[in-house]
């Protein structure tokens, strides 16, 4: 992504002067609060602890993927293969645990996640294929492999409820706890480690970062490996929630994830974005989906709402940039 956009970015950049992240997050927060207030009046079931946990549970899988997704977008990269990779992870744990043990299945799944990340990262940095195209390719490959390895069947996985269904702490499902931990880790990485800060620098100007000693390829490969690891965790949670691994699982999940990341303020041009922004983006989508279900809105209309939200968010961003440019 970044390489393609280099020149246009340079032209844009000088126009974008004002500091943006704080008012941007404030606007998102206001929107989230407005949504919550609206649904609280619209449905008597909305404002309820158990419903709050439902919202978090529903967004935890997309959320776990959205954290490395944010890191990648900040570095100017996109991983579209996450939905297929999560389904493939589920298939692996299903197949391996059926043949040997669940522990071995989990281990194999994690390994596969790392390998998927390495392959994506290697293709993008060494062979220098654009990340959008590379991961569109691995998206198709991994989905195909789900059917080939799993024989096209939904594989039942028994005695595997602890990730998706058990509520070990504060009545929260394990998946929500994992999501919260990953959010914390992601925020820490982006603010307090040279790796996280290198992602911003690479996204802001990959040609310049190389000239100040940043090892672009290494950093980007690590980010893709983190994304691959997240797909393994997501695939395990999905399988645990259903006690089964389906080959069509998590179809289209990448779209929800990218919607949340972009809604949260990460720039498609790289160099900009925060973990906290992504979390608010995830909550907005989670609340919207949940509220629409409570209001008995047809699920197909939920897709329409989510897509509209994405376009509004991005248009809003463009308007503000133009406004900032004119004001200068």
């Amino acid at each position, binding site marked *: 992504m970044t390489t393609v956009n280099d020149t246009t970015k340079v032209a844009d950049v000088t126009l974008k002067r004002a*500091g943006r992240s704080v008012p941007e997050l404030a606007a998102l927060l206001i929107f989230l609060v407005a949504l919550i207030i609206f649904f609280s009046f619209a449905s008597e079931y909305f404002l309820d602890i158990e419903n709050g946990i439902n919202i978090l549970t529903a967004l935890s899988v997309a959320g776990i993927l959205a954290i490395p997704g944010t890191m990648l977008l900040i570095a100017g990269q996109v991983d579209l293969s996450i939905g297929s990779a999560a389904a493939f992870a589920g298939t692996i744990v299903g197949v391996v645990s059926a043949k040997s043990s669940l522990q071995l299945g989990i281990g194999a799944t994690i390994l596969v996640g790392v390998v998927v990340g390495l392959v994506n990262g290697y293709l993008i940095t060494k062979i220098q294929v654009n990340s959008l195209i590379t991961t569109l390719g691995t998206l198709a490959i991994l989905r195909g492999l789900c059917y080939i390895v799993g024989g096209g069947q939904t594989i039942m996985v028994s005695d595997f409820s602890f990730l998706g269904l058990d509520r070990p702490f504060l009545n929260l499902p394990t998946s929500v706890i994992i999501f919260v931990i990953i959010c914390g880790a992601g925020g820490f990485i982006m603010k307090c480690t040279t790796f996280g800060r290198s992602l911003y*620098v690479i996204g802001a*100007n990959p040609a*310049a970062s190389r000239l100040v000693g940043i090892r672009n390829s290494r950093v980007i490969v690590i980010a893709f490996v983190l994304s691959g690891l997240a797909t393994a965790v997501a695939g395990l949670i999905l399988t645990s929630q259903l006690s089964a691994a389906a080959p069509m699982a998590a179809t289209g999940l990448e779209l929800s994830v990218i919607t949340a990341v972009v809604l949260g303020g990460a720039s498609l041009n790289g160099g*900009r974005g925060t973990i906290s922004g992504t979390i608010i983006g995830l909550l907005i989508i989670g609340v919207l989906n949940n509220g629409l279900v409570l209001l008995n809105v047809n699920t197909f209309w939920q897709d329409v709402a989510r897509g509209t939200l994405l376009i509004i968010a991005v248009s809003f961003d463009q308007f503000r940039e133009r406004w900032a440019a004119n004001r200068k």
Partner: protein
Amino acid sequence: MPDKDMKLISASGIHKSFGGVEVLHGVDLSLAPGEVLALLGENGAGKSTLVKIIAGDYIPEQGRITCSGVEYSSLDPIKAREAGIRMIFQELSDAPTLTVAENISMGLWGATRGIVSWKKINERAEKALSMLGVDIDINKKVGKLRIGERQIVEIARALSDNARVLILDEPTAALSSAESERLFSVIESLRSQKVGMIYITHRLDEVARIADRVNVLRDGSVALLADAKKATRGELVSAMIGRDASDVSHPTDRPKPGGKILSAHNIELDRAFSGIDFDVHEGEVVALYGKVGSGTAEVAETIFGLHPEHRGEIKLNGKIFSPKDPNTAIDNSIGFLPADRQRLGAFMIRPVAENLGVPSWPRYSNHGLITVAPEEKAYINWTDRLKIRSRKDPKQKIATLSGGNQQKVLLARWFEGSSKLLVLIEPTRGVDVGARRDIYETLRRSAKEQNIGILITTSDHEEVIQVADRAVVMSKGHKVAEFKGSTITTESLITTAS
């Protein structure tokens, strides 16, 4: 019907100002059919303003322009085009993914009712190229051609679009000598087709070679108009630099250089430079001086590890050094400033302190953990020392700073990174005069006080005089001279480089 002696262009008393500053003070210029007029002058003498007025891009405040007997009170790009005036820019404006024939016919498809006639397109291309006496495959993609061939394709495009006046802006700057020869023969063909040409150049040897008359501009006025075959090199140089040249003064401090930091012996890079030797000592500023395209920038890039395929011997602190990537160079305490600040230097959307701190991250961090405190402190510290004139807000984006201040931040990057050798390409390009003086002062002071070696590449001879202890002059990829101390003069630099 124009008579035989009718001038293609006759401009007189042209005045032009930008923002209240007059840059052309009543310039005259004329061009006859089949004539080559060389236009010489220093950077900022007004050459490009003058030719842009002739091409209709700028409207002069005063003056008359007559094209083939028709007087224009104000020429605009469309009228200039109708008058047959075409400019061939240094930056090619062709379409690399299309074929030669398509490029030549671009915009002149010869279509009937929206259906393109490939026969007409090919005929037009063949005809234009044969008029120029060159043999280029019209079905080849332009992107696959050498730079000189692409230039000829652009000339062919202008010719097939009825060009009568061609303005060539430093056409040989990026060409090899063989390609230059080919261009000269194209110019001869154009001459026999009665096309008039204004030929902007920095290369004095080309003037007598191809031009009929030479027009030297200095500070917005015509300093010399002469027969190109008779004007001597000395006359041209003194017309270009005038008396003001003596105002440029050498730095007064001449530190005794210490030990050798860098020594390059017979280094070579295909299609860029060969047989280059030079040394950089501790406390010394060395300038690689040459025109754009002379190979100076590539030498600097090679030292920083951007051309691992180079040959020859480079020694750093007496040990063999093979720079294979920027990390190798940075690990050996070499800092680098690229020519293109926006594209290769700054992280425009990131905070100014981060822009300054990145190369020092390994020192600031502990097992990969890092805070912004050290770089913000460093920014505050360097704003004073380098006279960075801006708010002392380390979180502001570097894009909010002026060009000169941005450049100071990018230099401070490597001072903060404790580099022992700085490699700087065109360090004051796009920098205003005040900041330029600050940068020269900083470079000289830090070389002396911190005992670091500084290698700059530049195409500005005044910069060499003001900042360098030693100057290595390059031309067309070869080292042509080396000067030290007071032997670095405008005359010595310009005469050897062209």
